[in-house]
Protein backbone atom coordinates (compact mmCIF):
# COMPACT_ATOMS: atom_id res chain seq x y z
CA UNK A 1 0.00 0.00 0.00
CA UNK A 2 1.32 3.43 -0.80
CA UNK A 3 -0.53 6.71 -0.69
CA UNK A 4 -0.21 9.56 -3.16
CA UNK A 5 -0.87 13.06 -1.88
CA UNK A 6 -1.43 15.24 -4.91
CA UNK A 7 0.85 18.25 -4.99
CA UNK A 8 -0.60 20.76 -7.44
CA UNK A 9 0.67 23.86 -5.71
CA UNK A 10 -2.56 24.52 -3.83
CA UNK A 11 -2.58 23.62 -0.16
CA UNK A 12 -0.15 21.86 2.11
CA UNK A 13 0.40 18.33 0.85
CA UNK A 14 3.50 17.96 3.06
CA UNK A 15 1.39 18.18 6.21
CA UNK A 16 -0.73 15.22 5.09
CA UNK A 17 2.38 13.18 4.27
CA UNK A 18 3.82 14.04 7.68
CA UNK A 19 0.68 12.85 9.43
CA UNK A 20 0.88 9.51 7.62
CA UNK A 21 4.57 9.23 8.50
CA UNK A 22 3.66 9.74 12.15
CA UNK A 23 1.38 6.69 12.05
CA UNK A 24 3.83 4.59 10.08
CA UNK A 25 2.00 4.59 6.75
CA UNK A 26 3.86 5.18 3.50
CA UNK A 27 2.80 8.35 1.75
CA UNK A 28 4.44 10.81 -0.55
CA UNK A 29 3.65 13.94 -2.51
CA UNK A 30 3.13 13.42 -6.22
CA UNK A 31 3.41 16.30 -8.64
CA UNK A 32 3.19 14.37 -11.90
CA UNK A 33 -0.33 13.27 -12.92
CA UNK A 34 1.15 10.38 -14.91
CA UNK A 35 2.59 8.85 -11.72
CA UNK A 36 -0.73 8.62 -9.91
CA UNK A 37 -1.49 5.16 -11.25
CA UNK A 38 1.43 3.70 -9.26
CA UNK A 39 -0.33 4.30 -5.97
CA UNK A 40 -2.96 2.30 -4.14
CA UNK A 41 -4.67 5.36 -2.60
CA UNK A 42 -4.81 9.02 -3.55
CA UNK A 43 -5.54 12.16 -1.56
CA UNK A 44 -6.40 15.55 -3.01
CA UNK A 45 -5.74 18.30 -0.44
CA UNK A 46 -6.42 21.98 -1.02
CA UNK A 47 -6.65 25.40 0.57
CA UNK A 48 -7.77 28.53 -1.20
CA UNK A 49 -10.06 29.55 -4.01
CA UNK A 50 -12.15 26.94 -5.84
CA UNK A 51 -12.14 28.68 -9.21
CA UNK A 52 -8.38 29.06 -9.20
CA UNK A 53 -7.70 25.50 -8.04
CA UNK A 54 -10.15 24.02 -10.51
CA UNK A 55 -8.36 25.70 -13.38
CA UNK A 56 -5.00 24.42 -12.14
CA UNK A 57 -6.31 20.85 -12.03
CA UNK A 58 -7.56 21.16 -15.57
CA UNK A 59 -4.54 22.81 -17.11
CA UNK A 60 -2.05 20.43 -15.51
CA UNK A 61 -3.87 17.27 -16.53
CA UNK A 62 -4.68 16.34 -12.93
CA UNK A 63 -8.44 16.36 -13.57
CA UNK A 64 -8.08 13.63 -16.20
CA UNK A 65 -5.65 11.61 -14.10
CA UNK A 66 -7.93 11.78 -11.04
CA UNK A 67 -11.01 10.80 -13.05
CA UNK A 68 -9.15 7.81 -14.52
CA UNK A 69 -7.90 6.84 -11.08
CA UNK A 70 -11.25 7.03 -9.31
CA UNK A 71 -13.70 5.98 -12.03
CA UNK A 72 -11.68 3.63 -14.24
CA UNK A 73 -9.35 1.87 -11.85
CA UNK A 74 -11.77 2.60 -8.97
CA UNK A 75 -9.09 3.02 -6.36
CA UNK A 76 -9.78 4.94 -3.11
CA UNK A 77 -9.71 8.70 -3.52
CA UNK A 78 -10.06 11.17 -0.63
CA UNK A 79 -10.56 14.91 -1.04
CA UNK A 80 -9.76 17.18 1.91
CA UNK A 81 -11.22 20.65 2.49
CA UNK A 82 -10.94 22.46 -0.86
CA UNK A 83 -9.84 19.13 -2.34
CA UNK A 84 -13.15 17.65 -1.16
CA UNK A 85 -15.12 20.45 -2.79
CA UNK A 86 -13.21 19.98 -6.04
CA UNK A 87 -14.55 16.42 -6.32
CA UNK A 88 -18.04 17.81 -6.88
CA UNK A 89 -19.77 19.22 -9.93
CA UNK A 90 -19.71 22.94 -9.30
CA UNK A 91 -19.01 25.68 -6.76
CA UNK A 92 -20.43 29.16 -6.34
CA UNK A 93 -16.91 30.23 -5.43
CA UNK A 94 -15.64 31.29 -8.82
CA UNK A 95 -18.72 29.84 -10.53
CA UNK A 96 -16.51 27.03 -11.69
CA UNK A 97 -16.89 23.35 -12.42
CA UNK A 98 -15.31 20.68 -10.27
CA UNK A 99 -14.15 17.22 -11.27
CA UNK A 100 -17.69 15.89 -11.20
CA UNK A 101 -16.68 12.67 -9.44
CA UNK A 102 -19.43 12.91 -6.81
CA UNK A 103 -22.95 14.31 -7.27
CA UNK A 104 -22.85 17.49 -5.19
CA UNK A 105 -22.28 21.22 -5.52
CA UNK A 106 -20.84 23.88 -3.24
CA UNK A 107 -22.67 26.94 -1.97
CA UNK A 108 -21.66 29.76 0.30
CA UNK A 109 -22.58 29.08 3.93
CA UNK A 110 -25.66 31.13 4.87
CA UNK A 111 -25.80 31.99 8.56
CA UNK A 112 -25.63 34.78 11.12
CA UNK A 113 -22.71 33.00 12.73
CA UNK A 114 -19.21 33.98 11.58
CA UNK A 115 -18.16 32.86 8.10
CA UNK A 116 -15.73 31.20 7.45
CA UNK A 117 -16.63 28.44 9.83
CA UNK A 118 -13.33 28.12 11.68
CA UNK A 119 -12.91 25.85 14.63
CA UNK A 120 -13.30 22.38 16.06
CA UNK A 121 -16.66 20.70 15.45
CA UNK A 122 -17.96 17.30 16.46
CA UNK A 123 -18.88 15.05 13.57
CA UNK A 124 -21.77 12.62 13.68
CA UNK A 125 -21.61 9.67 11.34
CA UNK A 126 -24.70 8.43 9.55
CA UNK A 127 -26.21 5.11 10.46
CA UNK A 128 -25.81 3.73 6.96
CA UNK A 129 -22.30 2.43 7.13
CA UNK A 130 -21.91 0.15 10.12
CA UNK A 131 -18.26 -0.61 9.47
CA UNK A 132 -17.41 3.06 9.60
CA UNK A 133 -19.45 3.68 12.72
CA UNK A 134 -17.55 0.92 14.47
CA UNK A 135 -14.17 2.26 13.46
CA UNK A 136 -14.67 5.99 13.70
CA UNK A 137 -16.35 6.66 17.00
CA UNK A 138 -16.98 10.11 18.51
CA UNK A 139 -14.81 12.48 16.50
CA UNK A 140 -13.97 16.15 16.45
CA UNK A 141 -12.21 17.80 13.56
CA UNK A 142 -10.87 21.22 12.67
CA UNK A 143 -12.88 23.07 10.02
CA UNK A 144 -12.00 26.20 8.10
CA UNK A 145 -14.26 27.02 5.13
CA UNK A 146 -16.74 29.51 3.73
CA UNK A 147 -18.48 27.22 1.26
CA UNK A 148 -20.24 23.96 2.04
CA UNK A 149 -21.03 20.78 0.12
CA UNK A 150 -24.68 20.22 -0.83
CA UNK A 151 -25.29 16.61 -1.97
CA UNK A 152 -27.88 15.74 -4.58
CA UNK A 153 -29.17 12.87 -2.48
CA UNK A 154 -28.93 12.28 1.24
CA UNK A 155 -27.50 8.77 0.91
CA UNK A 156 -24.25 10.44 -0.08
CA UNK A 157 -23.81 11.96 3.40
CA UNK A 158 -21.51 10.00 5.68
CA UNK A 159 -21.01 12.58 8.40
CA UNK A 160 -22.47 15.90 9.55
CA UNK A 161 -21.62 18.64 12.04
CA UNK A 162 -23.64 21.42 13.61
CA UNK A 163 -23.08 25.10 12.87
CA UNK A 164 -26.41 26.89 12.99
CA UNK A 165 -28.06 23.73 11.79
CA UNK A 166 -26.72 20.48 10.47
CA UNK A 167 -24.17 20.67 7.66
CA UNK A 168 -22.20 18.17 5.61
CA UNK A 169 -18.85 17.04 7.00
CA UNK A 170 -18.21 13.98 4.82
CA UNK A 171 -19.70 12.70 1.58
CA UNK A 172 -18.94 9.28 0.21
CA UNK A 173 -19.91 7.04 -2.64
CA UNK A 174 -18.12 3.75 -3.25
CA UNK A 175 -14.39 4.51 -3.43
CA UNK A 176 -14.61 8.30 -3.40
CA UNK A 177 -14.74 10.31 -0.15
CA UNK A 178 -14.99 14.07 0.35
CA UNK A 179 -14.11 15.43 3.83
CA UNK A 180 -14.74 19.12 4.48
CA UNK A 181 -12.46 19.31 7.54
CA UNK A 182 -8.66 19.23 7.86
CA UNK A 183 -7.57 15.83 9.20
CA UNK A 184 -3.97 17.05 9.08
CA UNK A 185 -4.93 19.72 11.66
CA UNK A 186 -7.08 17.50 13.83
CA UNK A 187 -4.38 15.66 15.79
CA UNK A 188 -5.41 12.20 16.93
CA UNK A 189 -8.82 12.33 15.27
CA UNK A 190 -7.20 13.24 11.98
CA UNK A 191 -4.78 10.35 12.35
CA UNK A 192 -7.64 7.93 12.96
CA UNK A 193 -9.51 9.25 9.97
CA UNK A 194 -6.49 9.07 7.65
CA UNK A 195 -5.75 5.60 9.02
CA UNK A 196 -9.30 4.52 8.20
CA UNK A 197 -8.87 5.83 4.67
CA UNK A 198 -5.59 3.98 4.23
CA UNK A 199 -7.28 0.73 5.18
CA UNK A 200 -10.30 1.27 2.92
Amino acid sequence: MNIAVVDYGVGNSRAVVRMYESIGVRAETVSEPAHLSHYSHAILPGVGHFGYASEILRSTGWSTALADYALDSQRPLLGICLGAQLLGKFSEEGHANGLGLLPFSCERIETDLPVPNMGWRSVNYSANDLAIRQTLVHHRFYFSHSYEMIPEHSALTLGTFVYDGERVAILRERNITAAQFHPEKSHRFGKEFLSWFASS
Partner: protein
Amino acid sequence: MVRFVMNAFRAFPVLTIDRGAAVKTRRFSSPIYVGDPVNTVRLWSEFCVDEIVCLDISETREKLSSRLNQITAIIEEAFVPVAFGGGIDSLEQAHRLFDLGIEKVVIGWEDLATGELVDTVAAHYGSQAVACCLDYSYSWELCDWTKNRRKRVLHVTELYSAITAMGRTNVGEIILQCIDRDGEMNGLDLAVASEVHESVDVPLVLLGGVGSVEHIKSAHRVGCSAGAGSLFTFRTNTRQVLLGNPLLNEPEWTS
Protein backbone atom coordinates in the same frame (compact mmCIF):
# COMPACT_ATOMS: atom_id res chain seq x y z
CA MET B 1 -22.23 39.45 30.25
CA VAL B 2 -20.81 36.03 29.68
CA ARG B 3 -21.20 35.12 26.05
CA PHE B 4 -20.15 31.82 24.69
CA VAL B 5 -21.77 30.80 21.45
CA MET B 6 -21.73 27.15 20.56
CA ASN B 7 -19.01 26.03 22.94
CA ALA B 8 -16.76 28.81 21.75
CA PHE B 9 -14.52 28.56 24.83
CA ARG B 10 -10.93 27.67 23.96
CA ALA B 11 -7.80 27.03 25.97
CA PHE B 12 -4.48 26.70 24.25
CA PRO B 13 -0.72 26.95 24.69
CA VAL B 14 1.18 30.05 23.68
CA LEU B 15 4.75 29.58 22.50
CA THR B 16 7.05 32.57 22.78
CA ILE B 17 10.00 32.55 20.39
CA ASP B 18 13.05 34.72 20.95
CA ARG B 19 15.54 34.79 18.08
CA GLY B 20 14.57 31.32 16.96
CA ALA B 21 14.47 29.68 20.37
CA ALA B 22 11.45 28.76 22.48
CA VAL B 23 11.61 30.72 25.73
CA LYS B 24 9.51 31.50 28.76
CA THR B 25 9.61 34.93 30.37
CA ARG B 26 8.52 36.33 33.70
CA ARG B 27 6.89 39.75 33.45
CA PHE B 28 8.27 39.96 29.92
CA SER B 29 11.90 39.61 31.05
CA SER B 30 14.43 37.00 32.16
CA PRO B 31 13.76 34.63 29.28
CA ILE B 32 14.77 31.05 29.93
CA TYR B 33 15.39 28.59 27.16
CA VAL B 34 12.77 25.87 26.97
CA GLY B 35 13.66 24.22 23.70
CA ASP B 36 13.43 24.27 19.96
CA PRO B 37 10.12 25.70 18.72
CA VAL B 38 9.63 22.96 16.15
CA ASN B 39 10.10 20.27 18.77
CA THR B 40 7.83 22.08 21.22
CA VAL B 41 5.09 22.27 18.63
CA ARG B 42 5.53 18.61 17.72
CA LEU B 43 5.14 17.55 21.34
CA TRP B 44 2.14 19.74 22.10
CA SER B 45 0.57 18.41 18.94
CA GLU B 46 1.19 14.84 20.13
CA PHE B 47 -0.47 15.80 23.39
CA CYS B 48 -3.54 16.88 21.41
CA VAL B 49 -3.82 20.55 22.19
CA ASP B 50 -6.51 22.09 20.01
CA GLU B 51 -4.36 24.89 18.64
CA ILE B 52 -1.04 26.61 19.21
CA VAL B 53 -0.29 30.31 19.19
CA CYS B 54 3.32 31.23 18.35
CA LEU B 55 4.47 34.72 19.24
CA ASP B 56 7.84 35.98 18.13
CA ILE B 57 8.99 38.27 20.94
CA SER B 58 12.51 38.98 19.68
CA GLU B 59 13.55 42.55 20.38
CA THR B 60 15.47 42.96 17.19
CA ARG B 61 13.50 40.96 14.77
CA GLU B 62 14.88 39.46 11.63
CA LYS B 63 12.88 40.13 8.52
CA LEU B 64 9.93 37.79 8.21
CA SER B 65 11.49 36.18 5.15
CA SER B 66 14.34 34.74 7.21
CA ARG B 67 11.94 33.37 9.80
CA LEU B 68 9.79 31.61 7.22
CA ASN B 69 11.94 28.47 7.21
CA GLN B 70 11.30 27.93 10.87
CA ILE B 71 7.61 28.67 10.44
CA THR B 72 7.45 26.16 7.59
CA ALA B 73 9.02 23.52 9.83
CA ILE B 74 6.57 24.36 12.61
CA ILE B 75 3.60 23.92 10.27
CA GLU B 76 4.86 20.53 9.13
CA GLU B 77 5.20 19.26 12.66
CA ALA B 78 1.93 20.66 13.98
CA PHE B 79 -1.07 18.43 13.53
CA VAL B 80 -3.19 21.24 14.93
CA PRO B 81 -4.01 24.76 13.69
CA VAL B 82 -1.23 27.26 14.34
CA ALA B 83 -1.55 31.01 14.80
CA PHE B 84 1.46 33.26 14.42
CA GLY B 85 2.25 36.77 15.58
CA GLY B 86 5.23 39.02 16.03
CA GLY B 87 6.14 41.92 13.82
CA ILE B 88 3.36 41.49 11.30
CA ASP B 89 2.88 44.91 9.82
CA SER B 90 1.63 44.36 6.28
CA LEU B 91 -0.92 42.42 4.29
CA GLU B 92 1.95 41.01 2.25
CA GLN B 93 3.42 39.37 5.34
CA ALA B 94 0.02 37.99 6.22
CA HIS B 95 -0.28 36.52 2.70
CA ARG B 96 3.03 34.71 3.11
CA LEU B 97 2.02 33.29 6.46
CA PHE B 98 -1.36 32.06 5.27
CA ASP B 99 0.29 30.56 2.19
CA LEU B 100 2.52 28.50 4.45
CA GLY B 101 -0.48 27.10 6.29
CA ILE B 102 -0.80 29.43 9.29
CA GLU B 103 -4.47 29.53 10.32
CA LYS B 104 -4.54 32.89 12.03
CA VAL B 105 -2.28 35.90 12.38
CA VAL B 106 -1.88 37.81 15.63
CA ILE B 107 -1.29 41.51 15.18
CA GLY B 108 0.14 43.41 18.12
CA TRP B 109 -1.41 46.69 19.12
CA GLU B 110 0.75 49.64 18.19
CA ASP B 111 -1.67 52.50 17.73
CA LEU B 112 -4.95 53.30 16.06
CA ALA B 113 -3.46 52.37 12.68
CA THR B 114 -3.41 48.75 13.88
CA GLY B 115 -7.13 48.67 13.22
CA GLU B 116 -6.58 49.42 9.54
CA LEU B 117 -4.19 46.52 9.10
CA VAL B 118 -6.57 44.23 10.96
CA ASP B 119 -9.45 45.22 8.69
CA THR B 120 -7.34 44.73 5.58
CA VAL B 121 -6.33 41.21 6.55
CA ALA B 122 -9.87 40.37 7.70
CA ALA B 123 -11.25 41.49 4.36
CA HIS B 124 -9.10 38.90 2.60
CA TYR B 125 -9.18 36.02 5.03
CA GLY B 126 -12.16 36.51 7.29
CA SER B 127 -12.37 37.96 10.79
CA GLN B 128 -11.53 34.72 12.53
CA ALA B 129 -8.19 34.66 10.77
CA VAL B 130 -7.07 37.83 12.58
CA ALA B 131 -6.49 38.37 16.27
CA CYS B 132 -5.16 41.48 17.98
CA CYS B 133 -2.93 41.23 21.02
CA LEU B 134 -2.83 44.06 23.54
CA ASP B 135 -0.05 43.89 26.13
CA TYR B 136 -0.79 45.87 29.27
CA SER B 137 0.36 46.47 32.81
CA TYR B 138 -0.97 48.04 36.00
CA SER B 139 2.46 49.57 36.54
CA TRP B 140 3.57 52.74 34.73
CA GLU B 141 7.12 51.67 35.42
CA LEU B 142 6.72 48.44 33.49
CA CYS B 143 5.14 50.33 30.62
CA ASP B 144 8.03 52.76 30.34
CA TRP B 145 10.67 50.14 30.79
CA THR B 146 9.42 48.09 27.91
CA LYS B 147 8.73 51.07 25.69
CA ASN B 148 12.24 51.10 24.29
CA ARG B 149 12.11 47.42 23.63
CA ARG B 150 9.94 47.77 20.57
CA LYS B 151 6.96 46.41 22.37
CA ARG B 152 4.06 48.78 22.76
CA VAL B 153 2.72 48.29 26.23
CA LEU B 154 -0.43 49.97 27.43
CA HIS B 155 -1.13 51.05 30.93
CA VAL B 156 -4.36 49.50 32.08
CA THR B 157 -6.04 52.92 32.05
CA GLU B 158 -5.21 53.21 28.35
CA LEU B 159 -6.42 49.72 27.68
CA TYR B 160 -10.13 50.32 27.47
CA SER B 161 -10.03 52.99 24.81
CA ALA B 162 -7.69 50.82 22.74
CA ILE B 163 -10.06 47.89 23.10
CA THR B 164 -13.05 50.01 22.17
CA ALA B 165 -11.22 51.14 19.05
CA MET B 166 -10.42 47.52 18.15
CA GLY B 167 -14.02 46.58 18.80
CA ARG B 168 -15.04 48.82 15.91
CA THR B 169 -12.87 46.83 13.50
CA ASN B 170 -13.48 43.38 12.04
CA VAL B 171 -10.99 41.73 14.36
CA GLY B 172 -11.89 38.12 15.15
CA GLU B 173 -10.72 38.13 18.74
CA ILE B 174 -8.77 40.24 21.18
CA ILE B 175 -5.98 38.80 23.32
CA LEU B 176 -5.36 40.67 26.54
CA GLN B 177 -1.87 39.91 27.85
CA CYS B 178 -1.15 41.12 31.35
CA ILE B 179 2.60 41.63 31.75
CA ASP B 180 2.40 41.75 35.54
CA ARG B 181 1.15 38.19 35.61
CA ASP B 182 3.26 36.81 32.77
CA GLY B 183 5.05 33.67 33.92
CA GLU B 184 3.94 34.11 37.53
CA MET B 185 1.42 31.27 37.46
CA ASN B 186 -0.70 33.04 40.08
CA GLY B 187 -3.89 33.43 38.14
CA LEU B 188 -5.30 35.56 35.34
CA ASP B 189 -6.37 39.18 35.55
CA LEU B 190 -10.09 38.45 35.73
CA ALA B 191 -11.04 41.99 36.75
CA VAL B 192 -10.24 43.35 33.32
CA ALA B 193 -12.66 40.94 31.67
CA SER B 194 -15.86 42.27 33.18
CA GLU B 195 -14.97 45.87 32.31
CA VAL B 196 -14.06 44.96 28.76
CA HIS B 197 -17.17 42.90 28.08
CA GLU B 198 -19.19 46.07 28.58
CA SER B 199 -17.39 47.86 25.78
CA VAL B 200 -16.90 45.29 23.05
CA ASP B 201 -18.71 42.39 21.48
CA VAL B 202 -15.65 40.50 20.30
CA PRO B 203 -14.37 37.18 21.69
CA LEU B 204 -11.71 37.75 24.33
CA VAL B 205 -8.69 35.70 25.31
CA LEU B 206 -6.94 36.25 28.63
CA LEU B 207 -3.21 35.57 28.69
CA GLY B 208 -0.70 35.89 31.52
CA GLY B 209 -0.75 34.06 34.82
CA VAL B 210 -2.30 30.68 34.17
CA GLY B 211 -0.70 28.20 36.54
CA SER B 212 -3.40 25.56 36.82
CA VAL B 213 -6.42 24.10 35.12
CA GLU B 214 -8.49 25.97 37.71
CA HIS B 215 -7.19 29.23 36.30
CA ILE B 216 -8.32 28.16 32.85
CA LYS B 217 -11.77 27.42 34.23
CA SER B 218 -11.84 30.84 35.86
CA ALA B 219 -11.46 32.44 32.43
CA HIS B 220 -14.50 30.51 31.27
CA ARG B 221 -16.51 31.82 34.21
CA VAL B 222 -15.89 35.40 33.08
CA GLY B 223 -16.72 34.63 29.47
CA CYS B 224 -13.17 34.54 28.10
CA SER B 225 -10.98 31.96 26.45
CA ALA B 226 -7.55 31.34 27.95
CA GLY B 227 -4.03 31.25 26.61
CA ALA B 228 -1.26 29.74 28.67
CA GLY B 229 2.51 29.55 28.40
CA SER B 230 3.89 28.26 31.66
CA LEU B 231 1.15 25.72 32.28
CA PHE B 232 1.95 23.78 29.12
CA THR B 233 5.70 24.19 29.54
CA PHE B 234 6.64 23.56 33.15
CA ARG B 235 6.14 20.78 35.59
CA THR B 236 3.89 22.36 38.23
CA ASN B 237 5.51 25.31 40.02
CA THR B 238 9.07 24.11 39.90
CA ARG B 239 9.70 25.63 36.46
CA GLN B 240 11.43 22.51 35.34
CA VAL B 241 10.70 22.22 31.66
CA LEU B 242 8.30 19.40 30.95
CA LEU B 243 6.03 20.06 28.00
CA GLY B 244 2.56 18.70 28.45
CA ASN B 245 -1.16 19.21 28.07
CA PRO B 246 -2.95 19.46 31.41
CA LEU B 247 -6.28 19.51 29.56
CA LEU B 248 -5.75 16.05 28.13
CA ASN B 249 -7.76 14.52 30.95
CA GLU B 250 -10.43 17.20 30.92
CA PRO B 251 -12.25 16.57 27.62
CA GLU B 252 -15.19 18.73 28.59
CA TRP B 253 -12.85 21.73 28.51
CA THR B 254 -12.03 21.31 24.85
CA SER B 255 -14.46 22.73 22.33
